[in-house]
């Protein structure tokens, strides 16, 4: 096999002979591979990340007793919450339980009172969009700590009408049941929460005399529109006694927006990738055309066109491979950093991106060297004479 030996020796020579040129080629190929890997990874991650961003809209699925809303006195057993699957591939599902009742609310200090909807929720202050400075829900409100039992979050409109200040005490009464709570903060959401007084679920259950009963479960399901639909269908099957309802305003809106965003991302990323390929191909063609003299020389000393061509294409593939392996690794690191910049969370590297980026780089590199084929018809003598 002297033939093959010769082939490899020549390849080795190509790498060792001109370090500067090798560096330039690897730089071009590596940059292309890095950009490809970074964008592909970022694009996959961004789509997923956007769906988690939809969390900001709050709950998108509601579980209510069957046939509800005409008679809202119906309740669900609290144990139903254990049937709700919380770990999805697209992220964690957030669950909040609530019990609503109308109770008389009075301020302990001034004695003013009115009737308002009392929402017993667990965790307290599920939607944390209130922005009024100083009105953030108490830290650690996600855990139903026992100390939170006597804390309430008062809706902005309730607060305005009853004239309650922060740190005041409220007395809630429903029939013979009374609960008192300490006003921890105010919520201003522009939604029904503004008209509610939110207290701990246990306190509300005592107030309503409905131990271990809830009137609704609110769920934030992350994920692409199709995944959410599937989740709702599964949940309905798991909970035949309750009604699982997508909050269509958000599920539909989110689906529309998600499709737009993922569309725009795919298109721009595709555009940029095509351009990167063109760029690397241009650089490779440029480098390959410098090898005219080498091709001419090899032909002059008796190399068959096909063998010469194969040698150069093998070189291009090898360079593409090395550049791709180095560049794609760099690109994945880059995308992790970029993900952190955009979403505040490092993008999770997708391993599938790596071989794809390397393969694309090799492909582009070979395509860039392909114009050398034109030299197959070139006569060695005219190449040496420097004729175009």
């Amino acid at each position, binding site marked *: 096999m002297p033939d093959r030996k010769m082939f490899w020796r020549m390849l080795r020579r190509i790498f060792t002979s001109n370090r500067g040129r090798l560096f330039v080629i690897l730089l*071009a190929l590596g940059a292309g591979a890095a*950009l490809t890997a970074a*964008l592909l990874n*970022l694009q996959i991650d961004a789509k997923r990340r*956007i769906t988690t*961003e*939809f969390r*900001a*809209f*709050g709950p998108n699925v509601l579980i*209510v007793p069957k046939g509800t*809303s005409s008679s*809202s006195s119906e309740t669900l057993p609290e144990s139903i919450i254990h049937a709700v699957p919380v770990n999805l591939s697209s992220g964690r599902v957030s669950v909040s339980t609530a019990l*609503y009742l*109308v109770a008389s609310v009075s301020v302990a200090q001034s004695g003013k009172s009115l*009737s*308002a*909807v009392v929402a017993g929720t667990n965790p307290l202050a599920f*939607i944390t*969009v*209130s922005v009024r400075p100083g009105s953030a829900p108490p830290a650690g409100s996600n855990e139903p700590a026992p100390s939170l039992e006597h804390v309430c979050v008062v809706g*902005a409109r*309730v607060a305005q*009408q009853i004239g309650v200040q922060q740190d005041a005490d409220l007395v809630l009464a429903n029939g013979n049941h009374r609960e008192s709570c300490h006003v921890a903060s105010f919520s*201003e*959401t*522009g*939604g*029904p929460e*503004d*008209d509610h007084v939110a207290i701990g679920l246990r306190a509300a259950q005592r107030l309503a005399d409905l131990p271990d009963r809830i009137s609704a479960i609110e769920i934030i399901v992350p994920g692409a529109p199709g995944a959410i639909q599937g989740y709702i269908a599964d949940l309905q099957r798991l909970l035949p006694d309750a009604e699982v*309802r*997508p*909050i*269509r*305003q*958000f*599920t*539909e*809106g989110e689906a529309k*927006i998600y499709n*737009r*965003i993922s*569309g*725009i*991302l795919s*298109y*721009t990323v595709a*555009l*940029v990738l095509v*351009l990167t390929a*063109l*760029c690397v191909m*241009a*650089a490779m063609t*440029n480098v390959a*055309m410098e090898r005219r003299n080498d091709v001419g020389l090899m032909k002059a000393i008796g190399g068959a066109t096909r063998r010469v061509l194969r040698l150069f294409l093998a070189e291009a593939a090898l360079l593409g491979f090395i550049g791709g392996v180095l560049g794609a690794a760099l690109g994945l690191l880059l995308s992790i950093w*970029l993900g952190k910049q*955009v979403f505040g969370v490092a993008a999770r590297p997708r391993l599938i991106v790596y071989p794809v980026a390397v393969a694309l780089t090799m492909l582009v590199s070979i395509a860039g060297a392909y114009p050398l084929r034109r030299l197959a018809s070139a006569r060695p003598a005219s190449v040496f004479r*420097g004729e175009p």
Partner: protein
Amino acid sequence: MFLRLVSDSFARRPRHKLLTGAALALGMAVTTAALSVALDVGDRLAQEFRSLGANLLVTPQADSLPLEIGGVDYRPVNAGGYLPESDLGKLKTIFWRNNIVGFAPFLDVPVLAETDSMQALLRADLKPDLKLIGTWANRSVSVPGGRAFVTGIEKTNPWWHVDGTWFRDDLAECIVGTNVASRRKIKVGDDLLVFEIKSINPPVTLNPAPLVALFGDAIDSSHLRRHDSLISHLRDNLSKRREFDKESLQHKLRVTGILSTGGAEDDAIVAPLAVAQQIAGKPQEYRRLYVSALTKPEDDFGRRDPGTMKPDELERWSCSPYVSSIAYSIKQVLPGADVRVIRRVAEGEGQILTRVRTLLWLVTFAALLAAALAVGASSAASVIQRRTEIGLMKALGAGSGTVGSLLAAEQLLLAFIGGGLGYALGIFLARYVGQKIFGVAPAFSFLVLAVIIVLAAIVTLLGSAIPLRRASRYEPAPILRGE
């Protein structure tokens, strides 16, 4: 001489120039497309976010607290305040009028609805069992000193689906929630009789017993079939008994569609606002108004309380379409109203919009970088390939400066032609992408053209700068010898 050399270079190597120009045009085209889309995407997405519906809620300042659980209001009907409908046209006169995409007023009345009047009267307990939501489906509002503006529920609540058609705002028509329709077997085209109940506290009770006494045993199925004469008879009797108001005992609404919303409206009837006003006895008034407005994501400045701002800050604040500054200007034109931002919609929107924008600018920047690399590489290649020519020029006595400016002029000419062509091509690309994703082509922007031309010039000059510097150091003799 200089110009001749430049034009000669183009004429002598047309294919080579064509290739370099093509690379340049392609790079610039992609940059143009990415830039146009990125510039446009904020507005487009903001528009898209309107599919989440209204982001502002207007309620009367004097309103009482709604005691609403699961869509059922436990508060007496006549409690609370109302707002005049006639003011609504003013919404389109505020500074940010073009950002107001739509609005719809709401008035809810508890009613008793039946497809058959006999059944309604025979019920032992005349408690309202349904909520009738009065609103606008698609109504033209006259704007003071301007044209009419068509708006309604389809703009503010786009997730409401109607199987059939929406009611017409000026007719006695309605759509019924899907749960109501299936429970009562109501079909499109049916007539629904809606009875008003003046007060639910104490509820009007009507026993079938006195009716039986009135008509003897005559109330049977045969009467149900020819109930029209019976109902008029009943109406006479009942109005005498002053149980009901004679004129508005019942409203006959034709069902034009079945509504499904996935929310509490599935258990309600939705009818024109005028019908609800008539039933509630509140002419020209409404209770809630949903406004859908295009907004700019709120930053720290946007969240500040306008009351604490200095005059110049207030001006800057009210000249940015923050959701809160739009709320502020709506409050100015609607006296007695309380305008609240629906935080759930507005905040999420702002956050996602900011993220997506950053992401797209990043991708655009990557596109720019890649385009610069591509163009730079091809100009570098074109200079390197002309080493012998440069050597010859130098041998004939041209200085480095002359050679450099000659090549730079060629490159610039190429940049303008390639950049211009690339821009034209890029606009097509951007239109295609915009059309494909949003159904609307991005707006034409001269800014992009300027950026592209300048960029093309900078990139080609930078790309050829390094080989040019090397070329200026060339010794003519070895080059001419072909070394």
